């Protein structure tokens, strides 16, 4: 906390950061002020009037907290009869035409209107005139479904399309109780961040067609994760759940605030990438076309490694630093080469200047820092010399089919150690299933040199093993990436001061980044 100010809330002294509005400043101190329209990313709009607070001896005495900066000596009153009446009346006003269809609303359980009603109102409806009917289940495009009846007209969605994406597809049309959020005729939402509107909407007016009716919000376990969809490494929540008699699956990703990396939002592509964690997973161990037990598969690979004169290990640019290190170590053990060839992960022109990076791999900086060669010439050369290829989950066909590499590979003894069933692994004689990023923990470094740590979120019924564990079964000495950290730290000078347990939640910017500086 930088500069602080002291103020009084309900005549108790609180010390908060200076320069913030009352909502944000007091939230840090654990004092919640109800609000609909204010969002730190979108600024104060002051239209919902839900955050009105009383300032003792203030002029005017009642002000919206979102537009009032925290000031020294301010006397904020949140529990006076007047403020309670204001909050109750505002909620009654919002609920006049609200359909109260919580049983069929996906927002139920994480709805501000529901929570505030329970906390500040609990009043019966006094309305004896029919409610105003508006349109429901409108397809706004990009997977956003709008329900005009549930809307509280806070305008967060409208401001998002105007301020953040600057596409301005949404607007509020008409006035009074005919007012509603709408798109322009025939012009649906068309931007790569549209689904953030679903996160932003404080009520159930904006829901996602992908998540629609899939699961109730209160069943979901919300774990913190880091998106592996591109080199940005956006922070998100992994919402997953194990149905009775079922397996632990992911239902959705939501944006997680990290001002150092992604701010408040994530892109739609990343948000939808959770499907890849559930689907097309490699679960069988295959040796020579037949399904075998995992142990037999490992035995077959060890045998091959012992006979091989020159094995080649291909690592994935999505692997964690620890996994890359573990592969490097067993490559040394078996006298093999290591390649991190992954040009296919870079899709030129697919990025933008906001969150989407054209490199679709999560930890290419890790490859660079560990001095793992990524060029195609090196791969073709080592592939020519190799008599055994171990591919650790590197999908080199990611954006286009690399015919030459595929042809060379098909002539070799090819072992795929992979999390997904992909074309790149089809020609393998041995296939070993492994965990994907939601099922292991580790550290990755994004393209801005921010090192981020993430933990395991999903626990499958038959948990697949992580690459570090696979290398240990293949004869490697590393049992745990954290124990191997001293070795990694010595190799990468940039990480010399980094202790995995001390990496803060929002990641850590690595300093003096530059040329790969490798000593081992």
């Amino acid at each position, binding site marked *: 906390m930088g500069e602080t100010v002291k103020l009084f809330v309900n005549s108790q002294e609180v010390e908060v950061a200076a320069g913030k509005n009352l909502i944000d400043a007091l939230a840090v101190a654990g004092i919640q002020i109800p609000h609909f329209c204010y969002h730190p990313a979108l600024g104060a709009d002051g239209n919902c009037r839900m955050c009105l607070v009383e300032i003792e001896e203030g002029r005017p005495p009642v002000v919206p907290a979102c537009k009032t900066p925290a000031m020294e000596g301010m006397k904020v009153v949140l529990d006076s009869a007047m403020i309670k009446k204001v909050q109750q009346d505002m909620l009654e006003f919002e609920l006049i035409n609200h359909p109260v269809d919580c049983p069929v609303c996906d927002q139920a359980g994480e709805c501000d209107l529901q929570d505030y009603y329970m906390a500040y109102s609990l009043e019966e409806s006094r309305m004896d005139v029919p409610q105003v009917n508006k349109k429901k289940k409108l397809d706004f495009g990009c997977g956003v479904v709008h329900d005009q009846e549930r809307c509280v007209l806070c305008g967060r969605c409208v401001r998002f399309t105007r301020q953040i994406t600057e596409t301005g597809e949404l607007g509020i049309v008409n006035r009074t109780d005919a007012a509603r959020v709408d798109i322009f005729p025939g012009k649906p939402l068309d931007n790569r961040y549209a689904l953030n509107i679903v996160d932003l909407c404080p009520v159930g007016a904006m829901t996602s067609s992908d998540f*629609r009716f899939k699961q109730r919000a209160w069943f979901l376990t919300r774990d913190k994760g880091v998106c592996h969809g591109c080199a940005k490494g956006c922070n998100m929540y992994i919402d997953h759940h194990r149905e009775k008699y079922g397996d632990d699956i992911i239902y959705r990703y939501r944006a997680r605030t990290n001002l150092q990396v992604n701010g408040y939002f994530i892109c739609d592509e990343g948000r939808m990438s959770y499907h890849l964690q559930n689907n097309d997973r490699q679960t069988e161990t295959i040796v020579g076309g037949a399904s075998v037990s995992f142990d037999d598969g490992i035995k077959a690979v060890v045998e091959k490694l012992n006979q091989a004169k020159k094995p080649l290990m291909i690592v994935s640019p999505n692997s964690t630093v620890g996994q890359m290190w573990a592969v490097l170590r067993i490559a040394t053990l078996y006298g093999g080469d290591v390649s991190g060839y992954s040009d296919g992960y870079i899709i030129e022109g697919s990025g933008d200047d906001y969150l989407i990076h054209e490199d679709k791999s999560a930890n290419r900086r890790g490859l660079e820092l560990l001095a793992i060669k990524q060029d195609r010439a090196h791969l073709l050369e080592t592939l020519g010399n190799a008599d055994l290829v171990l591919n650790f989950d590197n999908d080199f066909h990611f954006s286009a089919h690399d015919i030459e590499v595929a042809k060379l590979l098909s002539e070799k003894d090819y072992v795929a150690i992979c999390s997904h069933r992909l074309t790149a692994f089809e020609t393998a004689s041995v296939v070993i299933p492994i965990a994907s990023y939601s099922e292991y923990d580790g550290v990755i470094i994004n393209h801005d040199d921010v090192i981020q740590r993430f933990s395991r979120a999903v626990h499958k019924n038959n948990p697949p093993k992580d690459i570090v564990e696979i290398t240990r079964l293949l004869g490697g000495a590393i049992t745990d990436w954290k124990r191997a950290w001293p070795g990694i730290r010595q190799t990468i000078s940039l990480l010399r001061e980094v202790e995995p347990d001390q990496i803060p939640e929002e990641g850590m910017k690595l300093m003096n980044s530059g040329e790969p500086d490798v000593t081992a």
Partner: protein
Amino acid sequence: MGAKIKVVERKGKTFFEQLYLIEIFKGMAVTVGHFFRNLRDNSNLYVRHYPEVKPEITPRWRGRHRLTLHEDGSIKCVACFMCQTNCPSECIMIEAGEREDGVSEKMPVKFEIDLLECIYCGYCVEACPMDAIRMDSGVFSVTSSNRENMMIGIAELIEPPGAFNEDEYQKGVG
């Protein structure tokens, strides 16, 4: 302590009682007497002729669940998952889907109750905001020769009608 004390007369101390066999025969006489009486006419039996005669159950009896229907025959359930959330034995498994008939937006595409796990507590009925699930089917004996049949779906759940008239049921619920 002002508890009432009742002194029970001890029997079996007399000589004839201690002989034991005489008492056995006296007891057998009672049993055989009942046997011949019931053989002649069993209408005065002290037990119910189950399963020919079913017990009378009250509207508050919690029998096997049923899903109720609107008057037009559409299912009342809107798949809000309140029953599943409230279920202490986690025996209700719902899958929700889009509803196209205009009644609501949402309906269950799968609604399964594992009757082997159900403890018939009635919390699902209490939780339901739509009065869509009730335990008034009057089915009190749920049996099967295999586990699979004890998992019932929508088809079985909407099949039985309510066993009581609406007023009686509401009185019981009230």
